[in-house]
């Protein structure tokens, strides 16, 4: 298939380029030729790298390598001649062998560009705030400053969440999954305490007791703490919406397994007031966002209820090996 061949791709307005496993061009459609290869000479057989320049070349080659090596679709963004594109590189598979790669370039909408620009605008003051808070934290070492220190720490944690979700937003706009951190780990005690701290005011306003039962320390757990915190916040919010006044909700974490802990379990429990049978909707389903998140992090989540004791949602996470 070359520039001269006629196929459905010929009539596509979006630029398309097909490469072979050796990184040579097998086909470009007319839309691609018009925008990226205006010289008109046959591109077939040329290295893919020769079709692009500078940073775009680097982005395309990186995506092609990733796509061919891992056999999965890779999304990335590029800008050419003042136009932004969202690119999708997908492997072409025939009889279990990867025989090439097809790259589709879709012009980005102005809204995406604007969102990205906004994200950059947000990231800059957030970075400044981070520096200020770090400096303030250094100045609040004495016992008299304890209250201020705790306020600054609270602010830092909130800012860390803003940074985290701001990065997630960028990944979402760019169409790339958030950078996977295979070695990421978190302190479950801190994550549980932070999740509870975020909702303590809301619980208190409804007259519901929120108890945190965690030991002083737990082994570090594999996964992204910010995402686990989000899952716990969602679960606690769910409890908040169904709990009755004067009820009590507990969030707990502890190690499980014999000898050296291999896992930890984080539970959210609510005990019914009076007779257990009056507990609101004991079979309430778990929010999808939470179940997906826990699964993504390699954890396991189950809910159960018993009119005699109450309702519980338990999440198990693997401990990070030493």
């Amino acid at each position: 298939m070359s520039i001269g061949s006629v196929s459905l791709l010929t009539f596509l307005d979006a630029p398309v380029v097909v490469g072979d496993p050796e990184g040579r061009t097998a086909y470009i459609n007319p839309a691609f030729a018009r925008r990226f290869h205006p010289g008109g000479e046959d591109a077939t057989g040329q290295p893919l790298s020769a079709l692009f320049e500078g940073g775009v070349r680097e982005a395309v080659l990186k995506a092609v390598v990733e796509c061919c090596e891992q056999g999965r679709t890779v999304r990335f963004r590029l800008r050419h001649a003042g136009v932004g594109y969202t690119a999708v590189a997908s492997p072409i598979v025939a009889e279990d062998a990867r025989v090439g790669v097809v790259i589709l370039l879709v012009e980005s909408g102005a809204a995406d560009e604007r969102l990205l620009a906004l994200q950059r605008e947000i990231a800059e003051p957030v970075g400044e705030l981070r520096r200020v808070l770090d400096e303030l934290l250094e100045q609040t070492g004495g016992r008299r400053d304890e209250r201020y220190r705790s306020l600054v720490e609270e602010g830092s944690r909130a800012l860390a969440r803003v940074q985290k979700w701001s990065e997630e937003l960028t990944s979402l706009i760019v169409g790339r999954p958030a950078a996977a951190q295979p070695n990421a780990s978190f302190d479950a005690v801190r994550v549980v305490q932070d999740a509870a701290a975020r909702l303590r005011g809301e619980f208190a306003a409804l007259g519901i007791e929120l108890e945190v039962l965690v030991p002083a320390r737990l082994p570090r757990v594999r996964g992204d703490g910010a995402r686990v915190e989000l899952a716990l916040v969602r679960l606690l919010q769910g409890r908040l919406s169904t709990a009755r006044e004067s009820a009590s909700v507990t969030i707990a974490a502890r190690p499980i397994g014999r000898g050296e802990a291999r896992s930890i379990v984080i539970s959210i429990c609510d005990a019914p007031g009076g007779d257990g049978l009056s507990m609101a909707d004991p079979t309430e389903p778990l929010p999808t966002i939470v179940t997906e998140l826990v699964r993504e992090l390699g954890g396991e989540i189950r809910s159960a209820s018993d009119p005699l004791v109450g309702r519980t949602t338990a999440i198990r996470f693997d401990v990070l090996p030493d």
Partner: protein
Amino acid sequence: MTKVRSLRQPEEGSRRDHSISTLVRDAQQLLRGNDFEGALDLYQMAASLAPDKIELEGYVDLLRSRLVKHYRERVGDASRIPKLLVPLDQITGFNLSADAGFVLSLVDGRTSFEELLSVTSMGPFEALRIFARLLDAGIVEVAA
């Protein structure tokens, strides 16, 4: 060999499931009589038999959360100071666990429950349970 294993495994599995359901049934029986401590022990046994059923660990936490309230009530105002009631040479007669012995060694008549809880490095459930039991056994008392 493979045949024997394939026949034996379901049998062991069903025996395990039977044990778990018996433990859970007995635990519920104890709960009806408000024996939360006893029910907790049984749920813990069931959870250790079935590590794949994490909902059992959830029930363990649920019972711990109920019991911790009871222990807090027993201990009362955490700013109060526990005092030893039993002479040190008679403590061995109580057959205390190592953890309880450790907690007891921290009771000096000057340190409050609150402070003791923070220095034991145990979880609040474990530490409060020990204090509640020491109070029940008359080994410590709370200064007025």
